[in-house]
């Protein structure tokens, strides 16, 4: 029963995180199209980021719960698999990125691309369980995806931006 509960919690965390990361980008692109973010729009964005942090909290706590379950049931092979270690690295990037954005050290465009790509990468790695690639290979694909997503977000924002301010 514990295993099922942890899996459900893990999936809810991922869904909240991926969904809110997606809507954070949609809202930001829509709200910033006139270069003015109103107080109401700021509140909507703040709420979206709160949901994202809640998702991250659920993901991390249930993730460690699952690790404990695997340790107590002696099924520890997964803990050293490339997919699992890559997923942990991506979650670490998500947390670090949030801190750097808060400290205004990370440029927003880079931080947004990292956040969105990291959430989807965590989802994909969690769904695939085990892939035929090494830890380094997975991280190279991930870095490539960050660049592609960053470029796509730039094009999307330029497309929806008001003509006067382009």
């Amino acid at each position, binding site marked *: 029963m514990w295993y099922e509960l942890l899996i459900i919690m893990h999936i809810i965390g991922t869904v909240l995180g991926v969904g809110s990361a997606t809507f954070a980008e949609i809202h930001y692109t829509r709200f910033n199209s006139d270069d003015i973010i109103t107080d109401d729009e700021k509140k909507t964005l703040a709420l979206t980021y709160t949901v994202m942090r809640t998702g991250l909290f659920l993901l991390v706590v249930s993730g460690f719960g699952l*690790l404990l379950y695997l340790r107590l049931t002696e099924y520890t092979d997964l803990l050293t698999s490339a997919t699992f270690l890559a997923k942990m690295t991506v979650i670490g990037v998500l947390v670090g990125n949030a801190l750097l954005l808060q400290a205004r050290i990370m440029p927003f465009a880079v931080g947004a691309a990292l956040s969105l790509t990291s959430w989807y990468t965590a989802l994909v790695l969690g769904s695939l369980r085990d892939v035929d690639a090494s830890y380094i290979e997975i991280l190279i694909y991930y870095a490539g995806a960050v660049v592609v997503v960053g470029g796509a977000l730039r094009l999307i924002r330029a497309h929806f931006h008001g003509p006067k301010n382009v």
Partner: protein
Amino acid sequence: MTPFLATMLVIHVIGGVIAIGIHNVTLMHLLKKSPNYVFLSRIAWAAVALFFLSWATSAYYYVTYYGTAVKPRILAGALPAGHIFFMETKEHIFLVLPFLALSIALCISYLRTNPDDALRKSTAFLTLIALGIGAATAGAGIIVSGSV
């Protein structure tokens, strides 16, 4: 492993992870120019309690079970570095964490009545160090478990 030892291990891991998460939230708030020190001092003291709880339960688990039942299996297995490097590093560095958490909580309690921008920045830096050590400790714990 007895149910009691399993409970000790669960408290150690979950307590530690939540305490690390609290330091993450604390750092996010300390990076603001005017953080809510009442909220921050409450969660900072909660982190202190959780780190000491995590510390005490891990000590019991280590002394009564790990050394005799787990350590020999890791040393004889495919990843002996799980104990030789990661556990040895973890058990020494983790000693620092509860006291770092205590220092952070004391600084924030002082800031609550005496706001000071320089101290806020220094406390944020100390929290960043605690967060880094906490994350490294958690990572080492995963590798140790994976080495069994």
